[in-house]
Every structure is written in structure tokens, then in C-alpha cells.
């Protein structure tokens, strides 16, 4: 860093932002205006202004209707700017490069877009399929894999250039694509009820096929250690787990008959399974077609409880420390959040952030949670201990929220 930068100390990186964060108090704003002048000077001294911006507490919010990403700062609780032109972002998700500078965005329209968070621009973009559902980045950061509905299968790209590296046709829709250690990806086949492991550590991908996962897997998760893969099934009354440390892994039904004897409700939105399931010593999982969160002992994979909730859960996400599980719900009950205490498995808090609560993202240590409230056009930030609302940030039909800390987690 230059002498001037050192002279400015900790304030310099903040002042270097191209757009000042919103929601500063008047005093702070005046200070920042002052610094802005200095920053301008400084920017011309430094070869590149962006070099001084750290990305560790940044994030991206998907604005699904307008095909844009809102760049946000988790510590400032503020929007910093926008990256536009990403196409159809309904159901879009993204992953981060290991250096937390780039994000790979998986659009519904089959677009794979690499964006630079610092320069706030698109670096590369390929239309890799007709219709895609999500993706993952390999542990070494070299490969980005995309799971496709149309024409199906999984495609793998070079993370630097987005040049195609491997094409893995499966003859149908693929779901639940995650990364695991060893430069491997795991995903499941909706039509065939199989899970495949693709090992990309060698020259050509090595595929291990596991049959008998159950009818119509709709989504899956892997635990943070990359060991347990759990697939939710649309066509069966259980979930299926794989111990990926076994060779080959054997499908094990978990929560068999969890809805037995009870009519399944119409499912207006498929639940999501994400790598935030571990809460204490149990996994918390959303039930399909029931107003329930299901608990499974993480070691034995035996059922360890059920929590009756307000509606059909979409996400059941453990706070990073595991002490609470936050749940949102399917249409038409998607204005409500419930918080479950992990020890008692009781709902300890319920509130209505607004219409269309689509997604939640915890700060890396879980002291705050960001909620996207689509129909209110707002992202709302809450304290997870007091449940106090700390801020509202304007966003255009916000859906997924992704903090850069995900870069260092397996399976997100």
C-alpha cells in the first residue's frame, strides 16, 4: 500500500468505494464526503482504486425480475451498487471464487455469468444450456459445474475463462449438484433416481453411479465436511442419505414413512435442501407436503424429533452456530418466518417480515440475518438474538442472498 493509503489508515478502503453506501447518518456522511476528495486523489495515485477494497464482508443479492445483482456490504448493512445484464435470474444461485473477488451466477435461462464484485461488471458469460438449475465450484477453485434441466446433464467449465471442460450427459434433469473434497462434484438424476459422483482430479472425469436413491429426487445437500449427502424425494415418503466416505456409498433411507397415514398437501413450492442443515447434533430438514420440520440425529441418521410449523417449509436453515433454525414457507404463507430453538425443538419466535420472504442468509458468525422480501422490494436485516429489525435495503424483487464467506465452505 502507498504511503498515502497508510496515512489514511482504516478509513481509506471505505472512502475508495465508487458509490458511498446508503443509510449513513448525516455526520458520517460529511466525514465521508471529506474523505471522498482525498480518496479521489488517492485513486489517481494508486494504479487501481479497487485494489484497496476488501471483499470478506461483501455479498450479492439476486434481483430476479430485472436480471441484476445488488452488491451489498454486510457490516455496513448497505447496498454499494449493481451489476446488470445477467438475463433470467428466477431461481438463480451463485458461488464464489476462492479469493472472493468473482462470483459465478447460474441463471434459469442456462446462462453462466462470471462477475467481478470489485469492478462491478460482467467478466465472462456463456449460454451453456437451455434451462439450468444451479451449480457448484470445485474445492481447488478451478472448475465450475452447472446442473441442467434442458437438455439435462452437467457441464463443467474452466473457472478462469468459462471455456468448456467436460460434458456429462445423463439423459434427464439433474438436481442437487454440490462440490466435495478431491475435486469432485455430486449430483442426482430426477428421472432415474440415481446419484452420480464426478471426479475431475484427473484428465478425464471419472463417474461413479449410485442407483436406488428413490423416486424423483428434487434437491439435495451435502454437509460442511463433505461426508453426508442427503437427497429429498418427491416420489417417496422418505429422504435418502449417502455416506461419501464409503466406497462405494450405499443409499440409506432416512425418515422412512414420515408422512405415513397423513394426506400429503399440494406442494406449491418445492422445499430447498442446503448445506445449513446441521444444528447441534441433529440435521433439521423441511418436510415435503407437511407443515413440519424433521430432525435427524447426524450420527445415526435416526429420527430425533419433529417440529410442527406454520406452513410447508421451503428453507430450514441453521444459524451458523447451530443454536437456532430459521424457517420460511411456501406460497401462500410466504410472508412469515419462524425461529426454532435447537435444544428444545420448539418455535421460539414468529414474525411477518412482509409478502414473499424468499431467502435468508446469515452473517458468517450468525449475529445477523438478511431476508429477501420479494413483494416488498426490500432486503431486511435482523439481529438473531433480539429479533430486532436493524435495517431495510431497497432491492428490485430480491430473491437469493449470498455472502462471500460461502467461498470457503464445502457444499454451498
Amino acid at each position, binding site marked *: 500500500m502507498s504511503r498515502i493509503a497508510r496515512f489514511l489508515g482504516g478509513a481509506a478502503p471505505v472512502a475508495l468505494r465508487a458509490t458511498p453506501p446508503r443509510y449513513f447518518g448525516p455526520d458520517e456522511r460529511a466525514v465521508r464526503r471529506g474523505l471522498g476528495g482525498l480518496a479521489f486523489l488517492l485513486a489517481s495515485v494508486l494504479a487501481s482504486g479497487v485494489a484497496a477494497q476488501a471483499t470478506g464482508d461483501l455479498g450479492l443479492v439476486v434481483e*430476479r425480475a430485472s436480471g441484476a445483482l445488488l452488491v451489498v456490504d454486510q457490516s455496513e448493512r448497505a447496498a454499494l451498487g449493481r451489476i446488470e445484464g445477467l438475463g433470467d435470474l*428466477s*431461481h438463480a444461485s451463485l458461488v464464489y471464487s476462492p479469493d472472493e473477488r468473482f462470483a459465478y451466477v447460474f441463471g434459469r435461462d442456462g446462462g453462466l455469468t462470471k462477475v467481478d464484485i470489485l469492478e462491478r461488471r460482467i467478466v465472462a458469460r456463456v449460454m451453456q444450456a*437451455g434451462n439450468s438449475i444451479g451449480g457448484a465450484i470445485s474445492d481447488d477453485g478451478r472448475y465450475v459445474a452447472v446442473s441442467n434441466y434442458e437438455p439435462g446433464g452437467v457441464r463443467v467449465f474452466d473457472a478462469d475463462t468459462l471455456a468448456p471442460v467436460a460434458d456429462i450427459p445423463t439423459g434427464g434433469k439433474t438436481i442437487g449438484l454440490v462440490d466435495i473434497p478431491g475435486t469432485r462434484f455430486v449430483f442426482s438424476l430426477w428421472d432415474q433416481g440415481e446419484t452420480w459422483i464426478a471426479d475431475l482430479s484427473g484428465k478425464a472425469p471419472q463417474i461413479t453411479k449410485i442407483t436406488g436413491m428413490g423416486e424423483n429426487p428434487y434437491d439435495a445437500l451435502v454437509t460442511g465436511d463433505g461426508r453426508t449427502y442427503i437427497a429429498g424425494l*418427491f416420489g417417496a415418503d422418505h429422504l435418502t442419505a449417502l455416506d461419501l466416505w464409503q466406497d462405494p456409498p450405499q443409499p440409506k433411507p432416512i425418515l422412512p414413512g414420515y408422512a405415513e397415514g397423513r394426506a400429503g398437501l*399440494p406442494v406449491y413450492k418445492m422445499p430447498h435442501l442446503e448445506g445449513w442443515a446441521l444444528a447441534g447434533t441433529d440435521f433439521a430438514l423441511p418436510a415435503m407436503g407437511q407443515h413440519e420440520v424433521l430432525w435427524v440425529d447426524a450420527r445415526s441418521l435416526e429420527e430425533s424429533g419433529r417440529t410442527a410449523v406454520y406452513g410447508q417449509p421451503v428453507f430450514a436453515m441453521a444459524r451458523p452456530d447451530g443454536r437456532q433454525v430459521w424457517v420460511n414457507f411456501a406460497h*401462500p404463507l410466504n410472508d412469515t418466518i419462524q425461529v426454532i430453538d435447537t435444544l428444545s425443538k420448539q418455535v421460539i419466535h414468529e414474525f411477518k417480515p412482509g*409478502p414473499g420472504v424468499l431467502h435468508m442468509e446469515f452473517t458468517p458468525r450468525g449475529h445477523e440475518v438478511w431476508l429477501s422480501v420479494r413483494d416488498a422490494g426490500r432486503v431486511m436485516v435482523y439481529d438473531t438474538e433480539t429479533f430486532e429489525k436493524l435495517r431495510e435495503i431497497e432491492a428490485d424483487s430480491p430473491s437469493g442472498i449470498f455472502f462471500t464467506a460461502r467461498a470457503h465452505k464445502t457444499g454451498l
Partner: protein
Amino acid sequence: MNRLALLLALLGAPAWAEPDAQALARLVHQDCGSCHGLSLKGGLGPDIRAVSLGHHDRESLQAVILDGIPGTPMPPWRPLLSAAEAAWIADYLLKGEDE
């Protein structure tokens, strides 16, 4: 009005009430869209834009919407939508109008 309140109101609405076009168009893109894609080009569920619905007419579409397709993820919307609203959505899909 928020959508939950709206849907609850619709549930109790008398049969002769005019469907709320704006709310229904929104429901098609946002909520049908969670399976069929925001622009209805397909996702877990198939493409349901007008060009792909040649094998349907208003009545068959209305029936699919109200009763779903058993054994598939296409859910029955009868608990949330009236017959008039389902017919409105059928027309809307066949016309291929966009928001």
C-alpha cells in the same frame, strides 16, 4: 394488498366476482414460475408459453390448473383459485400475453 390477503379474499369471493387480472398475472409469473420459470419457458415443469400449449384448449388447461396432474409435481390449485380464475389463467396462457 398483499398476496396472502388477496388469496384469502379470493377464496371467499363470490363466484361472480371479476378475477383480479393484475394479481393473477403476477401469480402466474411468480408462483407458477417457481416451477415453470419466471418467463414460463420451463424448469422442473415444462414450457407453458402459448407456443408450447398447442395441444390444450381453454377447458383442458382450466382442468389441469384446478386439478393438477396426479403423480407429478403439478399441484391442484383448486384450494387457492376459483374456476373463473383458472379460466382467466388458461386464457392468459393461450394468448401468450406478457406482463
